[in-house]
C-alpha cells in the first residue's frame, strides 16, 4: 500500500447495514479508506455494491451503523451536505444534466464553493462576478484534465458514450472531493477503452491526491488497478485484501462462478454454512 498508515482515514464505514423491509441489502459493511488509496469493490449482480455507495453518499440513511468522513459522523445527512464534506460520486447509469453544456455540467459541481450570496447575483455585485469567473476557470481546468476541453459548449446529450462517462468524472472532481466514488465507470466500454480509462483514474489519484473507491464488474480490469479489493455477495463482505489474495479466495470464485465450477476444479470452500 502506497499510503502511509499514520494518515487519518478519509472514510470509515462501521457496521453499516441497509434494510429494505425484509431484505438486508447490506449488512455490517466495514471499510476504511486512507488518502491516495485506490480500492476496488467487486461482486456479482445484486451483491449490494451500489447500495453501499448510496449509504455512504447519503442517498439512503443507513438502518444502523456509522459512516464517518474525516472522523465526522455523517449518517442521515443530505447528499449535498456529504458532498460538501468531500465525497463525490458518479452513477452507474450516467446521470448527466443532459440539456446543459459540458461546461455547465461541471460548473454546477463548483456551485457549493461560491463566495457570494444569492441576492448578489441580481445586483451583479463584484463578489458574484468574481465567483462566476473563478467557477468558469475551474470548470475549464477539470474539462481539460479529462480531455474534454474541445467539448466545452457541446450539450451533454450529444457527447459520445465514453465522453459522457468522462464528463461525469470531471463533474465529480469539480466538487473538490477527498474521496471519489466511481460506480462502474468502465461499463459498456471495450477492453482498450477500459485500460485507458483506468490509467486516467490512476493519474487523477496521483495528481489530485484523492482516495478512490471504484465499483467494477470486470475482474481483470479492477485487479490491475486496485491496491485493495472488497468483495461483496448478498450484502456481506466475503473477502478483502490484495488482488492476489482475493483472486485465489475460493469464496470469491464460488460467488462468481458457482459451486459446480469449484467441484469440477476440486477446490473446497471453507465454512460452507453461509
Amino acid at each position, binding site marked *: 500500500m502506497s499510503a502511509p498508515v499514520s494518515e487519518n482515514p478519509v472514510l470509515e464505514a462501521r457496521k453499516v447495514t441497509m434494510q429494505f423491509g425484509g431484505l438486508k441489502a447490506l449488512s455490517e459493511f466495514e471499510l476504511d479508506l486512507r488518502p491516495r488509496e485506490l480500492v476496488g469493490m467487486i461482486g456479482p449482480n445484486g451483491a449490494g455494491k451500489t447500495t453501499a455507495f448510496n449509504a455512504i*453518499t447519503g*442517498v439512503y440513511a443507513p438502518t444502523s451503523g456509522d459512516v464517518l468522513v474525516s472522523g465526522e459522523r455523517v449518517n442521515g445527512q*443530505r*447528499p*449535498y451536505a456529504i*458532498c*460538501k464534506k468531500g465525497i*463525490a*460520486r458518479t*452513477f452507474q447509469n450516467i*446521470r*448527466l*444534466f*443532459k*440539456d*446543459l453544456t459540458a461546461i*455547465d455540467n461541471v*460548473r*454546477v*459541481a*463548483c*456551485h*457549493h464553493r*461560491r463566495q457570494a450570496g*444569492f441576492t448578489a*447575483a*441580481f*445586483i*451583479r*455585485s*463584484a463578489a*458574484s*462576478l468574481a*465567483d*462566476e*469567473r473563478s*467557477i*468558469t476557470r475551474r470548470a*475549464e481546468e477539470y474539462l481539460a484534465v479529462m480531455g474534454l476541453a474541445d467539448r466545452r*459548449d457541446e450539450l451533454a446529450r450529444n457527447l459520445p458514450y465514453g465522453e459522457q462517462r468522462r464528463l461525469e468524472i470531471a*463533474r*465529480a472532481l469539480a*466538487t473538490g472531493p477527498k474521496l471519489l466514488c466511481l460506480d462502474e465507470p468502465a461499463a459498456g466500454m471495450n477492453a482498450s477503452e477500459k485500460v485507458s480509462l483506468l490509467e486516467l483514474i490512476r493519474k487523477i489519484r496521483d495528481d489530485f491526491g484523492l482516495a478512490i473507491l471504484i465499483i467494477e464488474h470486470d475482474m481483470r480490469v479492477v485487479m490491475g488497478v486496485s491496491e485493495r479489493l472488497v468483495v461483496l455477495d448478498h450484502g456481506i463482505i466475503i473477502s478483502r485484501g490484495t488482488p492476489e489474495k482475493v483472486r485465489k479466495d475460493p469464496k470469491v470464485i464460488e460467488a462468481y462462478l458457482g459451486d459446480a465450477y469449484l467441484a469440477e476444479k476440486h477446490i473446497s470452500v471453507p465454512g460452507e454454512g453461509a
Partner: protein
Amino acid sequence: MGHLKLVFRSLLPFLLALPVLWAATAVLAHFEMWSFQYILMMAFIDVILAVSLNVVNGFTGQFSLGHAGFMAVGAYTAAKITVAMRGMDVLGLPPGVSDQVVFSAALVAGMLTAAGAGFLVGMPSLRLRGDYLAIVTLGFNEIIRVVIENTPFLGQATGISGLPRRTTLVWVGMGAVATLVMARRLVGSTHGRALLAIREDEVAAEAMGVDTTGYKVRAFVISAAFAGLAGGLLVHLIQLCTPRSFTFVKSIEVVVMVVLGGLGSVTGSVIAAFVLRFGVEALREAQQYRMVLYSMLLIVLMLTRPTGLFGTREIWDLLPRLRRRRAEGGAQ
C-alpha cells in the same frame, strides 16, 4: 470608481427602458390609441406573469399551477394599501408624487406578501413532484380564492372596487424589465445553474452539492413575488380587485404562455405573452368563433412545435455575433 461602474451597469436596463417607455406613452397619447395602449399594458403584465412562472416551471422543472393565487395575494395587499392611503400626502409631498410613492410601496408590499405565500406553499410541496405538485398548487389557488370570497375585510365575492388608476405604461414596462432582468441574471449565475440542474436530474444535482430543497423554495419565492407584482399592477389598471380575476383559469392561461413559448426560454415566454394577448384581441372580429379559433391555434402550434416556440433557447443564442462576444466575455 469600479463600484460606480458596477452600479451603473446593473441599473442600465432600467435607465434604457425609461425613455423608451416615456416616448411610447407620448406617441400613443398623441395618436389617441387608448385601446392599443390598454392591450399593450395587459401584454406587459402577461410578460411579468409568464417569465416569473418560467422560473419555477421552466428553469427548475417543477409544475406549478397556482400562479393566480400568488397574483391575488399581491393584488389584494396592494389594493388595500392604495385604498387606505388615498388622498393622503405622504411626507408632505405634492399629491401627484405622493400617489406614486404610495403606489410603489403598495407594489413592493404586494411582492413581499406574495413571496411569503410562495414560501408557505413551497415548503410542504417540496416532497412532491410532477402531477402531485400541480394538484397541490392548484389547491392552494382555490384556497386563496375561497378565503377571499369569505372574508368581509377583502370585500368577499364583490371584491374591492373604485381603486385609483395608478398603472401606466411606464409602470408595467418597468415591471416587465425588472422581471426580465431578474430572470436573465438568475440563469446567468451559479444559482440559476443550480435550478437548471434540479430540472435536469434532481438526484445528481443533490449529489453534486446543490441544496435542492433550498433552491426549490427560492424559485417558488421569487416566482411568487413577481406574480404579486403583476397582480398589483393589474388591479390598478382595471380599477377592480375581485376573486374572479384570480381563478385557476388564469393560472392555466399563464401555464399556456410558458409552454407555448418553450419551458425554460425567457424569450419564448415574452413572445408567447404578446402573441396570445394580441391574438385574442385580433380574434374579436370572429365573435362567437373566437375561443374556437384560439384553441385551434394552440393545438396547431403544439403539434408543429411540441417544445414550444423557442424550446429552451433564447434569442441571443440565435445571434451568432452576440454569442461569440458573450463567450469571449465569459472566458476572460
